[in-house]
């Protein structure tokens, strides 16, 4: 886990990182259980359900952010000072 995130004020993103790691580990852990052994059906179903909820949540965020960005594009300078990759990458590092 990136240590720079621990000093961030955006606690929600830090826990999302943990959620992702958790889901990924769990999904990977499911793979060996596809053999004829008896896996815990309840556990696997729960992970599948959580994964679906998480995907839907992320997709909704994409929708919301697209809407917000569309409104914001009216407010910025089309001379593209605001499309500066380095400024945005600096913002990313602070998340």
């Amino acid at each position: 886990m990136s240590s720079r995130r621990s000093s961030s004020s955006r606690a929600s993103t830090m826990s999302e990182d943990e959620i992702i790691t958790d889901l990924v580990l769990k999904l990977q852990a499911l793979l060996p259980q596809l053999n004829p052994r008896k896996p815990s059906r309840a556990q696997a179903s729960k992970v599948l359900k959580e994964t679906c909820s998480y995907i839907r949540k992320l997709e909704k965020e994409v929708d919301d952010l697209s809407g917000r960005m569309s409104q914001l594009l009216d407010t910025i300078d089309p001379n593209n000072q605001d499309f500066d990759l380095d400024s945005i990458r600096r913002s990313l590092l602070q998340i």
Partner: protein
Amino acid sequence: MSATTEQLERNFTHRFLTSLRRINSPDSKTTTTHAAGLVIRRRSLRIKRAAYSSMARAAGSHRAWTRALLSRARSQRRRQQHDVHRRRQGREMGRAGKLRGLVPGGSRMEMGQLLEETAHYVQCLAVQVRVMQAVADHFSSSSSM
């Protein structure tokens, strides 16, 4: 963040910003006879499409979900549809039916591949959201100056 995730983030950010520049260029703006709300809504769909396509390209064609997403976008462009991410029913209901409907190309995958593609898709979606958040925050702080 791992090195590959950083690279993905850089790659996606670059492609996405390039698309945004194009979407925001004066030549692409529709006439002002359209209601402002409609312009904003249409542009929001273009931005969303650009986000998913940019991520699929940044993630690379060795993934089945990226190929499925880009091919769906191409066929929808031909049919003049707007929503590149329209939900489809998973053809096989089973326990993973809903998941198959959510992951691009999921209905054609066998279980092992589906889970692996899902894990990758989720990681990429999270990067996509994180970058879009940073871009939106950057624009909003720029405009308040």
